[in-house]
Every structure is written in C-alpha cells, then in structure tokens.
C-alpha cells in the first residue's frame, strides 16, 4: 500500500463507488421503459477518471466487461478539448469503440471548480434502432449499413441543452419510438442522478484525495490481479474450436477460431492469431466485444472479487489481428455477435483447461439458440395485430468437471439470461409449447458426464408466421476433455415424425404455417475423463433417473445395467473388449 494511503479509506471509497454504480442501475430499472432491459439487466454503469481509465463498474455483465474503455476512448478522440460541463456524448458505433448498434454508450464529465475530475458512463441496450430486421439480431446482414442507425460519437447534450436534431434523428429511425425515446431519457436521467451522488463522494474526500485514492484503487487492483495470476502455473497453451458457418447462408464452410494463451509470471496474453479471416455475416464480434468475452472467461480462474477497472487490464492483453473473424474491418456487420461471443468464452476455457486441468470443466452445452416468431394474428375483435415472440436458450447445462458431473440445466456463470415460462409464451403468442425437457443420452460421456441436451418443441397456432433462428453446433459438438466424449450435436426439425418432416439448418429465416411443429434439439455438454473410468454405480444412477438408456450405458460407458443393478462381470467383459479395440 502506498504511503499516506489509508487502507480503510480506500475500502470505503471502493464501496462508495460500487454502491453509486448500483444506485445508477437502480435508477435505470426504475425509469427505463423496455422490459427487456429490466429482465436481462442489459446495461452497465461506470465511473472513469478524467483521462478515460475505468475506475469502477457496477455488477458487470460478462458481455460488457471490457466495453466501456474503448468506447470512451473513441468519444474522447472525437471531442478533444471541447468536453464541457453539461455535455453528454452518445455513441453506438462499433468502429469508434462501441460494440453493436443496439448498445448506446453515453458519457458525462463531472467538473469540480472548473476541473474535470471524473467521467460517468452508462451503456444501455436499446430495443430497436432501425435496420432491415426488427431488433437488429439478423445473422445474415453483410454490412453495418443494413443493421440500423449508426451514431458516431456526438453530443446529445451540449452545455446542458439537448441536441434536438439528434433526438429527432433517433426518434425517426426506430420502429418503437415511444419505448426507445423513453429509454434514452432514462439513460440521461441516470447519468444526472449518478453525478449528484459522485459529487457527494468527491466532496467528502476532497478533490485531491479523491484523485489520489482512485489512482491507488487502480494500483491496488493491479496488485491483487498480479498476486492472483502469479499463483497460477506458467505456460503457453492453445485451443481451436469451430463455428458451423459465418451466418450468411450456404456457400461458406466452417470458421476456425483459435487462441493461444500465454501465462508468464503475473500476466496473461490472449492471442487469437490463427483465427480464420472475417466472413460475410453479422456473427463477428469486434475487438472490444472479443476482449469482453475473453476476459469474462479469464475472470473465472482468479478471485471474482477483484474490482473491474483499468488496473485489471494492465495485466491482461488481448490480441486479435485486424481483419480476422474476431476483429473484422469496417463495414462488417456485428449485430448477431452474441452467438460467437459465447463461443469465445468456451474457446478460452478450452485453452485454460490445459493450463489448469484440475479446475476447468469440459465445454458448456448449448447452441447459442435464439429464435423469433413474428407475424399478424386476429384479436378478439377480428383485427389484425402484430405479434413478436423472442426467446434465447444460449446454454443447456454444465460440462463434466474435474470432480463432478456437469449439472443438467446448470446455469452458466458468464452468461445470464432467464428462459420464458411456457405458460407466458402460450398466453401472449399464437404458439403452443409441446415439450421442454432433457434429452437422454445427449450428455458427453466421461468419467464425469456432461449435462444433458434439451428439447423445446413449438406448434404454430396462427395461420402464418415468419421464423428466424440463430444457433450453431449442428456440425461441431460441445467438446469433451481428457478423454471425455463430446455432447450430442444440435438438430432442428420441421414437423418431426410426419411424412413431411424436414431437417433445417442452424440459422434461417422462413415461413411457418398453422399446425407446423418446430422441434429444436439443443446439444449436450462435453464429458470429462474417459467414460470407462466412470463409476458403474454412477452410470446405474443415471439409468435409474432416465438420463442414460441401458443401451447407451453399454455402448458409451461399457456398463451393463439390469433391473437388479450393475452386472459387474458383464461390465468387466465389455470394458475389456472395447479397450482392446
């Protein structure tokens, strides 16, 4: 600890800033219109130092871990010295440090006695900012110009006065102006509220002390991160995973994603060199989103209580060559980068598993599944009314781990989205959900089994609907580790078990007719360790619980399960015979 820094005061400042960010989030929840924002907490509040270094961030969603700094840098580069009291800068431009068009960043400077002492930042996911597909999540856009309104860094407030032109442009470029303008206003009100509270904190500390203590907060975080990283083994490890395609339809092969992680002493480098070049579609994250997702995975192997600020980023370096799939050049589309964002996290885990084999589980299950049903239905008065139902099932369960099975439907600690209750789906949309359940035999076999895949089956009750699917893992399964098997792959089927059944790809936009059934089988997680090392009793328990069939127990685990229990002699024979092969 630096001399003349009192550790008590440092902890109190850290707590006060975290509490201030929480309060800002509370303000957003209270004032924002869009329920999506509230349900998914898709926003982040931060305080930065006058130069733009991140000092504190409230409860950080994994996808927003590294988002604030590059966006602020883009804004500061544009505004130069003309950043004054009462200004608020807005930007959603992925090519000026933002992420995808729906995420609008806003920054407000805090001046005390004429000196810029801090900058407050707030990211909010906005429901719709125009573009060719509602919601901006299409996988097959090929240019950012198709995706909606691009707001380069510009002042939405200047010296306390609103920029009316910008407000009007936004209002006229969204399908849901009432909601989006309400959320924009909420975003501004929240920055104003945050400023009041930050001023109180600064005046309690005094400006000089506030500056000294925020500087120390970054140094302290760096020390904490270094000490944590130093405790991990050194090494250089690599991993490759594959995306089925680039999202823009037939014509392109699978996309190779590659990472090399170098852990030396107190620092980490994550280098994505070796990844395929950028493709055609909108699945590609820009460098900032790649960084956020990579760091999210990294944070799971160090103390999760390390504050998220610039001090942390001093010891972690992320490299993705410009023009590669994880850092595409202008004017690539980025709207559906959420899918590949999940893949980056698992890619980093795949490499970390070699550095820390006793800590990292096999691949999380799931196909990063997101589906939209949209169309027109007749209401009680026989009027045509639009309906739109959107749901995500990004993950299915946990991969088998070093000491235990992957939990079936276990939550994913670095992605956090709730499902939609079947009864709500049915009450609000012309859909019937016919099945939502585990799929036996789909968990990757291993000494520790991967979590089961999940099926969700929908029947359309309306005369017609447009269906858009964003998913993956139809070709490349969720991998196993240390001899463990991968989970079962994903499958999409229209009208299963009929004479007109049709196999569908992982990504599509198409029409469905009344009575059509769409069955989504989402993949299981990877297994850990060789399946023949699995305790036969554990296999029997899985059979008893209906998670593994006796046939699969025999084929994948070499275990003979009968009504009476495990047939040990037969099991021994099976395992010997299959090992000999």
């Amino acid at each position, binding site marked *: 600890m630096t001399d003349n820094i009192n550790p008590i005061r440092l902890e109190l400042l850290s707590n006060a800033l975290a509490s201030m960010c929480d309060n800002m989030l*509370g303000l957003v929840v209270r004032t924002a219109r869009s329920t999506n924002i509230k349900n998914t907490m898709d926003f982040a509040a931060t305080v930065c130092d006058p130069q733009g270094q991140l000092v504190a961030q409230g409860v950080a969603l994994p996808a927003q871990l590294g988002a604030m700094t590059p966006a602020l840098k883009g804004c500061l580069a544009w505004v130069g010295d003309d950043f004054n009291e009462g200004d608020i800068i807005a930007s959603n431009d992925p090519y000026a440090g933002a992420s995808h068009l729906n995420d609008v960043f806003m920054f407000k400077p805090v001046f005390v006695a004429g000196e810029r002492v801090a900058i407050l930042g707030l990211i909010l996911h906005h429901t719709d900012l125009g573009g060719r597909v509602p919601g901006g999540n299409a996988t097959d856009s090929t240019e950012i110009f198709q995706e909606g309104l691009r707001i380069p860094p510009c002042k939405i407030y200047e010296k306390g006065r609103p920029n009316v032109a910008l407000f009007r442009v936004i209002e006229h470029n969204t399908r849901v102006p009432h909601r989006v303008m309400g959320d924009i206003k909420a975003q501004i009100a929240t920055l104003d509220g945050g400023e009041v509270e930050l001023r109180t904190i600064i005046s309690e500390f005094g400006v000089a002390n506030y500056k000294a203590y925020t500087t120390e907060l970054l140094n302290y975080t760096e020390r904490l991160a270094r000490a944590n990283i130093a405790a991990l083994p050194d090494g250089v490890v690599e991993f490759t995973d594959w995306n089925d395609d680039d999202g823009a339809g037939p014509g392109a092969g699978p996309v190779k994603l590659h990472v090399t992680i170098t852990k030396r002493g107190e620092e980490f480098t994550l280098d994505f060199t070796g990844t395929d070049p950028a493709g055609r579609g909108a699945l590609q994250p820009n460098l900032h989103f790649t960084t956020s997702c990579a760091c999210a995975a990294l944070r799971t192997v160090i103390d*999760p209580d390390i504050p998220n600020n610039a001090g942390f980023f001093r010891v972690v370096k992320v490299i993705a060559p410009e023009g590669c799939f994880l850092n595409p050049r202008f004017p690539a589309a980025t709207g559906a980068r959420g899918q590949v964002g999940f893949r980056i996290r698992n890619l980093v885990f795949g490499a970390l598993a070699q550095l820390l084999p006793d800590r990292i589980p096999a691949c999380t299950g799931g196909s990063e599944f997101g589906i939209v049903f949209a169309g027109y239905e007749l209401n009680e008065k026989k009027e045509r009314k639009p309906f739109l139902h959107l749901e995500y099932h990004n993950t299915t369960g946990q991969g088998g781990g070093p000491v235990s099975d992957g939990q079936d439907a276990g939550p994913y600690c670095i992605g956090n989205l709730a499902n939609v209750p079947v009864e709500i789906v049915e009450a609000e949309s012309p859909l019937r959900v016919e099945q939502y359940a585990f799929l036996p035999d789909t968990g990757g076999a291993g000494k520790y089994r991967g979590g089961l895949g999940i099926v969700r089956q929908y029947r359309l009750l309306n005369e017609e609907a447009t269906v858009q699917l964003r998913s993956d893992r139809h070709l490349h399964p969720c991998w196993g580790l240390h001899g463990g098997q991968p989970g079962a792959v994903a499958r999409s089927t229209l009208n299963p078990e009929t004479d007109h059944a049709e196999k569908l790809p992982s990504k599509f936009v198409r029409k469905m007719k009344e009575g059509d059934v769409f069955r989504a089988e989402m993949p299981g997680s990877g297994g850990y360790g060789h399946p023949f090392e699995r305790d036969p009793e554990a296999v029997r328990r899985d059979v008893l619980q209906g998670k593994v069939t006796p046939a699969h127990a025999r084929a994948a685990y070499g275990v003979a399960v009968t009504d009476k229990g495990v047939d040990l002699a037969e099991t021994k024979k099976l395992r010997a015979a299959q090992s000999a092969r």
Partner: protein
Amino acid sequence: MKSYRLGIDIGGTFTDVVLIGAGGELYSKKILSTPRDYSLAIEQGVGELMAETGITGAQVAELVHGTTVATNTIIERRGAKVALVTTRGFRDVLALGRFRAPRLYDLTYRKPEPLAERRLCFEVTERVDAEGNMLQQVDEAELATIAEALKTEKVEAIALCFINSCINPDNELAAVRVLASKLPGVSISASTQLVPQIGEYERTSTTVVNAYIRPVVEKYVESLISRLSRMNITAPLMIMQSSGGILPGEVAARTPIFIIESGPAAGALGAQRLAAHVNLGDIIVFDMGGTTAKASIVRNNQLALAPETEVGGGAALGARMIKGGGYAVQVPTIDIAEVGAGGGSIANIDVAGGIHVGPRSAGAEPGPICYNRGGTQPTVTDANLLLGYLNPDALVGGDLKLAYDKAEAAMTDMGAKLKLSVTDTAYGIHLIANANMMRALKAVTSEGGHDPAKFSLVAIGGNGAVHAANLAEALNVRRIIVPPVAGLFSALGMLFADVEHQMITAFYRRLESVRAGDINAAAKSLMEEAHRMLITEGYTAEAQRNVVLHADIKYFAQSGALTMPFAGFPVTAAMLANVAKAYGDLHEQTFGYRSDTEPLQFVSLKIVGRGLSGTPRIPARVERAQERIAKEGTRRAYFGPELGWRETRLMPRKALGAKPVAGPLIVEEYDVTTVVRPGWSARVDDWNNIICERTEQARS
C-alpha cells in the same frame, strides 16, 4: 385470569421468548436453539420464564410463533420423499428452472438439486390451452399406473402441477381425486389449491416445496402443541407468515409455504404496527444480528410486499436483484434486503493489502474473539468493544465475560499490518461494516426512489442500535427509534399481527376485455371462503372481518406485476373504470413513471382476509418487569477522528425520561446497547421507546 400473551421466535442460533401482560409488563428469555427438535428449546425457554415469573400456562391467552423450521427443513434436506406429477412433455420443469445464475464468474457454482428426483417426476397425458379450453382430459389409466409406482416407491408426499392449470384446474383436480383415492395417507399438494398463478416453473416449485416440507412442519406443530399442553398452555397456536399476518398452526402446517420468512417478517411487521401506533410516519426497519443485516421500509403505513421469494438460497438485496439461488416460492413476502454483515462478521486483509469485512461470520461458535470461545479473527463485535460501545466486563444480561485483552491484541496485530493504530483499525472495521449494510439500506430506499432523509430508522436486532446512529448520519436520517426488547423484537412484534388468510386465483386477461362481472365471478367463491374461515376462527361479527379483493396487474409487456386493492366487493363498473388511472399512479409511485398508452394485463386475483380483534393488538406501553439494571457511570468511547475519544455517560433505559439527554451516551440493556453519538440526544417516549434525535445540522 388469562391475560398474558406469549411470542416465540426461533432463529438458527437463538430462541427468543417474550411474555407480555395486559398492562404491558414484559418478560423475556433468550436461549440457544435446539436444531434437532426446535420445540425442545421452546419448552425449556417458556418453562424457565414461567418458573422465574410465577406465571402459569393457564394464564396464557394467546400464543404467536415465528419459526425457521420450514426453511431449515430445506437447507438441511430433511423433507419428505416427494413425487411430482406433471403434464406430458414437462417432466423436467423443476430441474430446468429459469436458468438464472445468482453468482457470476464462479465456475464451481451449482444450483440446488430439485427436491423431487427425476425418477419420481411423472408425466401424464392431459392438456389445457392458455385460454382454459380442454384439449385433452387427464388419462386416468396412466394415473393408476403412476399410483402403483408411487406405492412401490413408498413416496410420502405428492405435488401436482399441470401446464395452464391456473387457468382451468379441472384436469389437475381430477388427478388429485384419483391419486387420493388410490393412495390414502399420502400427503397431496396441488398447485391450483395453493397458488394458481401463471408461470409453470414457479408454481411447480412452490407446490413441490410445500409437499416437501409439509409432513415435517405438521409433525413439528403437533409436537409443539403437545409440549405446550403439558405446560397447561391451551391458547391456540398461531404462526407468523412471510406476509406479516398470522395463521392458526394447523392451517399453517398444511400450507407451510406461507411461513418461510416467518422470523424476519415478524420484526418488520412489529415495527410497522409500532410506527402506526406512536405516529412515526415512514420508517426504515434496520435489523442487525450476528451474521446478517436486514432492511425493509414502511411507507404510508404499508409494508412493501414482494410477490414471491426464494428459499434455500443466499442473502439477496431484495426482490429486484438477480435471482436463481434457491427454490422459487410464489407467495407474498415482505420485501427485505439482506447483506452478510453482522456482529460476527470477520475482518480480513487480502494479498494486496486491502481490508474487507465479512461476509464470513464467526457466528455464535466460536464467535468474536472477545467471547473467548476460540475465535482468533477480529470481528465487528470485537471492534465495537474496543471502541467503548460495549461493556468491557460482560454483556449486561448475559453471564458472558468478555476477553477484552485478547480482542485488543488481535486488533493491534491487524493494525500493524495496515500501519494503523488499534483505534483506527477498530473504527475502520466499524465503518466498513456500516458501508456494507448501507447497500441493504439503499436497496430499499434510494434505489427504489425514496429519499431516506424522509424516514425514521427503527433499529432492532442485537446490534442494530450500536450501528444505527452512524448509518443515520450517512443517510441524513434525523430520528432513530430503539423499541424495548429491540434484541428480541421479532418475538414481541409478532404479537401485534392480525389473523390473515391469503387466497389466489389466476386471472390472466387484458383489462380492455374484462367486465366487472367477470372479476366477481372469478373471486366470489374465494371471498366467501375467506369469510367462512374467519367465522370459524371466531370472527363472527361482520365488522371483525376485513376481506379485501386485490388484483395483480402489469403493463402488457412488463415482467413483474403490482398488487392493487379494489375499493369493495362486488367490483362495480365504476371501480373497474378507475383501475387504469390507479395503476398508473401506483406505478409512478413505485417506479417513478407511468405509461398510460400501454395496455394493462390482469395476472391474478388475490384475496386477503383479516380477522380484527376486539381488543388492541398493541399495548399502550411496554416495560420490562425483570430488568437487571446496569450501573450508571461513564466510559470512554471513540466517535471517529473528528470527535475522538469522549468520556461517555452510561444509563439504563429506565433512567431516561421525556427530557432529551445529550450524547455522547450509551444505554445498556439486557439484550441491546444503544450508542448515542455526540450531536444526538436521547429520550424515552410514552411507549418506552428510546428516541434518538439529531441535534446538529445534517452532513454536507
């Protein structure tokens, strides 16, 4: 003459017993809980209290009980062997849950396993659609097969929850009849008879939790009643609910989901009734114990209710934060924010030289260093002792001698590592604990849009009044109330509650398509049942029954609903016409904005039936009848770098009068210590509350 009322609150560590007489004379007892059979500590505690006071069981007119038995059954996995019967296609509804992770970045996190294992989850062919149309009658032959399997498995309890049964319960109820006839003696919980609300996971989870804990709670209530009758206590046993009302023991035992937050609810409810009785206006209830601190608010005499809670998860900052850590229970629950900060919270220094307090707690065993029971790490209580806030010889009521020297030595060591004096270290720990608790206080006030400066703070729990003044200054709160027996206030507060029955029926309809008659038809039988139950319990006069119909309503695209009362029953067209505006007002009050152009959606109808007692639930004044009076005198206490060490006056509550005494002052009692900082004064009001008031200007 039957004139005493008995309140019993069982916590994880302590069992608190409070007895009050008609004149407000109060006796209390705090003893260690007996987790193997919680009713044992009750018999002991009540027995000892009666022996000390000479009051007999026959003199007890009323008995109210708050208990953690429901929660602990789940945490300790001691519940029944339970099976679930659900609609074909949805066998895994429990295990799938809602997919929320309560802790980010923790690879080892696993959500709690379902209370019904998969092989005991059965699907049956049946289906109702979202409008309630019968698509397929329940298959009775399949049910017969399931019944055989349940018999073979010796299942003790069954939960039933079918898709859309909250809209049309016919299939689910038919299945109940079939299973009940084939499996006599097996406890059956059906979702439509408990919480017919939309959301299949939450409703199923609620039903399974009920099925799982019901046999245990029933046995507990039975054993408790027999223990009480051995002590000649024949007054009916009433149990505190999570919503702040009380229920007859047998009713609560059948529907134990309603008593999950029994203890914390009692503290909040007691404070609300007290605030109304002595006209405190809006209050923040701050309850700080050994391991956690809790905060809730009362505005316009109303407690904030959340529509659901979770059981078996960790502490949560109220209803609005990320959830998924426990089992969902869809019953109205007082909205309480909780943080892991209490007297036992441990201070520690990390590898980078940073200091933190909690959430780890030394608990009651080994406890703080000064308890001299093997604790080695400094805690908040050790800090409070070294700051002069606590009596250095012994806790006044307890026979527990304190090891001041050991605490001082450990704090000196910690200070050396931080390059701080022992005083600065101790005060720092006190302040960091306050900063942690501030998160809970802000969660229910400023984060909800309420300026804390407009509230008074009611400090309860063993440590509440030690920390309240400092917290109040930081919140710009100018008045603190420390009620009598603040350290056992939950046991007292539950005696102020009314009998309350909650009933729910699904009503998922757009406002524009609803006529008053639809609502009345949906609610009529439940309204009648509420009256019937209250009449059975002795509330025979119309004026003694307050049965109110509420609706849960939301904007169409919104996820959470708000609960709104109707002005009367049956609902009239005029009342219905007023709903949109009233909802807008309520929404604005709650969230700070309204959205009058968005369509409104009814979610469910809720009936709250209260039995109103002929005599006041809250006495005119309470006073401890067996107070061990602490010595008056002075002690040095530390109030921060600006105010420094002050020679501080010590007084018992009895010595305080209506005339304010200026701080610094410490009021020592059996169960609680009140620290009155310089710049504050303290007096006692007519009800025997200590009222601390800020005499200096607010900070900044």
